[in-house]
């Protein structure tokens, strides 16, 4: 097997996040020896985790210049580590921080790259990756002969490595940033203005709100405010993440009553995100299945809809409840609040 390197970014407290531990597990799946590289302001705890997982060597780039996710500094650090390690296969978690630089790093190394990898196997002593094309419409298994080969694994696709930290002897890699690499400064993090947290990548449940919530209900009236309360109560009670189809987050321009809790960040599938959660509950999504292709990554899927013949019944959900979502969710919320 080629020389494998796991690259991770240390969290602010110096440890490794869940996504990095998943990538670590993915790399270990390749078998054989591997090295690790870690980047961050403080990296000791992370390096110990990597050593504990069996990294033969741990390379590190540390210091305040590397505290914030920034293209110029992160790409320079990852490039230097990969070169120091003589890496042929580089595995990392497809976090926003790594995704920003991964392809640039591959380019600098003269290598190739695959991202959003959801499965990893070894055949003929080489990795075979599983990844999706055309917004989750088709799944490919592929390999490459070229090295280095950068493989970004999607968070949520592998079980995180669990084990005790070891004691790392970090091989510090010197990276000096010129002024040109500091033209960008990260100044902070902003949370959406709606107040309530509705996107939780770690949640057990994804609640998919369909366009039916904002349509006229059987009494001939709109009940959008009531819908919003039911949805937010559920998201709050179940500590769920909230997703929606494009049609619902796009409604702002139509001048009609809209669910104010939804933004483009909540969009699932098509031009939205593709979150992975163990459970998913789709509500009032009649006919929207083709729009919500991100649904494919939900393990257990249930739906509530008024029509027993809707697309969700055609092999897309485990259970379809034919009922009024307003009535059901009110009771569900009461039960969850108990």
């Amino acid at each position, binding site marked *: 097997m080629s020389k494998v390197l796991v690259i991770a970014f240390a969290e602010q407290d110096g440890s490794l996040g869940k996504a990095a531990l998943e990538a670590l597990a993915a790399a270990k799946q390749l078998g054989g020896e591997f090295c690790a590289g870690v980047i961050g302001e403080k990296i000791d705890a992370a390096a110990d985790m990597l050593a504990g997982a069996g990294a033969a060597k741990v390379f590190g780039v540390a210091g305040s210049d590397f505290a914030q996710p920034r293209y110029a500094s992160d790409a320079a650090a990852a490039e230097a580590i990969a070169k120091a390690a003589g890496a042929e296969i580089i595995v990392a978690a497809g976090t926003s921080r790594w995704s920003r630089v991964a392809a640039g790093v591959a380019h600098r190394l003269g290598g190739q790259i695959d991202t959003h990898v959801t499965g990893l196997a070894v055949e003929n002593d080489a990795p075979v990756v599983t990844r999706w094309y055309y917004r989750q419409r088709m799944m490919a298994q592929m390999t490459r002969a070229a090295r280095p080969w950068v493989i970004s694994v999607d968070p949520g696709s592998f079980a995180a490595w669990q084990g005790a930290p070891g004691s790392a002897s970090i091989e510090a890699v010197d990276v000096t940033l010129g002024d040109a690499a500091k033209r960008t400064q990260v100044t902070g993090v902003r949370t959406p203005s709606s107040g309530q947290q509705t996107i939780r990548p770690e949640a057990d449940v994804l609640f998919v709100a369909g366009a039916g919530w904002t349509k006229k209900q059987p009494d*001939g009236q709109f009940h959008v405010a009531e819908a919003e309360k039911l949805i937010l109560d559920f998201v709050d009670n179940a500590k769920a993440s909230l997703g929606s189809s494009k049609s619902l987050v796009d409604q702002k321009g*139509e001048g*009609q009553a809209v669910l104010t809790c939804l933004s483009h960040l909540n969009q699932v599938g098509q031009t939205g995100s593709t979150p992975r959660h163990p459970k998913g509950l789709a509500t009032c999504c009649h*006919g929207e299945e083709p729009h919500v292709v991100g649904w494919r990554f939900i393990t257990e899927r249930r739906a509530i809809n008024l029509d027993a013949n*809707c*697309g969700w019944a*055609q092999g897309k959900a485990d259970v379809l409840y034919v009922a009024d979502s307003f009535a059901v969710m009110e009771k569900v919320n009461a039960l969850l609040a108990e």
Partner: protein
Amino acid sequence: MSLAEQNAADVDRQCMDVDIACVGFGPAMGGFLTTLARGLMNEDGTPAVESATMPGMPPQVICYERADDIGFGVSGVVTRARALRETFPDLNPEEIPLCHPVTEEQLLYLLDPIGASRRPLTVRLADGAIKALKWALPYSDHALRIPFIPGFMEKHDGLLLSLGQFNQWVGNQLMASGTVQVWPSSPVSEPLFEEKKVVGVRLADQGVDKTGAPDAGFMPGMDIKAALTVIGDGPVGPVGRRIDDEIGMPEGNHQHDWAVGMKVVVDLPEGCELKPGTVLHTLGFPEPEIFGFLYVYPGNVAAAGIFVPSWFDNPVRSTYRYMQHWLQHPALWKHLEGATLRSWGAKTIQESGRRGEPHLAGDGFARIGEGSGSTNVLTNSGVDEAWKTGTLLAEGVLELLKDGKPFTKENLEAAYVARRRESWVEQEGRVAEKARDGFQHGFVRGMIGMALAGFTKGHMALGGDGRSPYQRVPTIEEYAKGKLSAEEIETLRKEAHAKGQTLHDAIMDRLGWPAIEYDGKLIVSHQDALLLGGKVQAQPGYADHVVFVYPHLCEECGTKLCAEVCSGQAITVNPEGGVPLFDREKCVHCGACMWNCGSVSPESTERGGIEFRAGAGGLHSAEN
């Protein structure tokens, strides 16, 4: 004028000058623009004639199409392709996806294997005779293969086309020529008049709410001024209809006969024996008035569908439900079982043909294609005819441009209408014009009438009564007389309307039609057909294009035929009564609501209570 309309009228509109403004990119416009583009430039690349609006340049020719792409929202066809081949003598079907020469043509008379079909006595007698003699007849799977196809219906030297793919092919060549521009996603709301002269068109307002009132990003539709406006916006196009309202129809002409055609494009099951180029025409089932077709494309793909005409006097005529029963007729299902839906769509067909011809030209405008009465109702052919009308207009326009003559009514009549009168479109249209009249009095007389007109080349025909659809449509009580009591119907109506549902399923179930069992592949719910097949979508920011103009008429209407017939379930019954609800995002722009209104406008006996205006969105499949 509504408040929204007043607001819109007050706004400051931008204006743009072009030489020729065209409305609607269909086969007629394809013929017009292809012929025109070839004549506008000399071989050395210099303009053959000069633009009046941009001196030194060739004439600026702009075509606005309401659909979101040039290949969306049209239909599969079998055509003799005479005019197409005149324009493209070296036409190679292999260059156009889903195009194939016709290799085999069959006409099937379908018997009713269910027993729910509403068959008059003569048809039942004929059915009985066929069954009794089936051992001696070409009979199988409840269908009789008619041993010959009348010459006037034959398409054996023709082509099978997906009009969507054909339009893309034509459009791409046109745009690559750089001589004309075709802009999709650009609904044209109305013609611009100066007295009786058409001086251009107005595009639909954008950034408006459902009612048309300005909203976020309001942009008033631009006025496009042109010396000539070419109208090819089809049988339900708002520009053509507005001109008819303004200047009326020629004496004796009317558009009272219509049909809605609905079809699916399917991947045939593996091992299907149908060969590319095969054409099946069917009649007799699910109701005698409903005709069907199945065309086999290359690659084990087929288009199949039905026509529901305005003389099928059923106030709960749901094309979708009838199509599902038709697809499952044993004679078709033996080919289609296991097929998968690829595409779906519906459109209105103007069945008055030559008799529905409006004024073809006037000061500043000319009309081509189906909306101009070119469809041949005897041969069931429209695309080739439409294309021909476009080429005839282009020849006339080039002549006028080169002679430096203005686009007056007189000049256009000499240059275009005269060419049209001498063409085969006119001659064959005249033969056909009375061919459908017999259907006004029922299926059997209809068939006799068609045969008479066809075999006598139009010299003999059965007379029709010329009634408009709203004059014909019976009440549900009349339609179901003897099978369902008025009380029973009222109960069903109340139940359905309280849930905002239409009545056709409940009525058809009671009249003996079996419930539809979905197979999840081809036999799917109407909504799945819309999304998975038609890929129906609509951009925000446009007004509702289906407008119920007279709420009191809707209040009094007992049939709600607009909702029953709606091809996309976009019109639904309002549980509170009164004006039906309209969901623009589900509309496929077939326009069936417009001619299926059971009421008559207080302002014109030629109009119902529904206005079908310019709208964006609709089908997003290019395979229809």
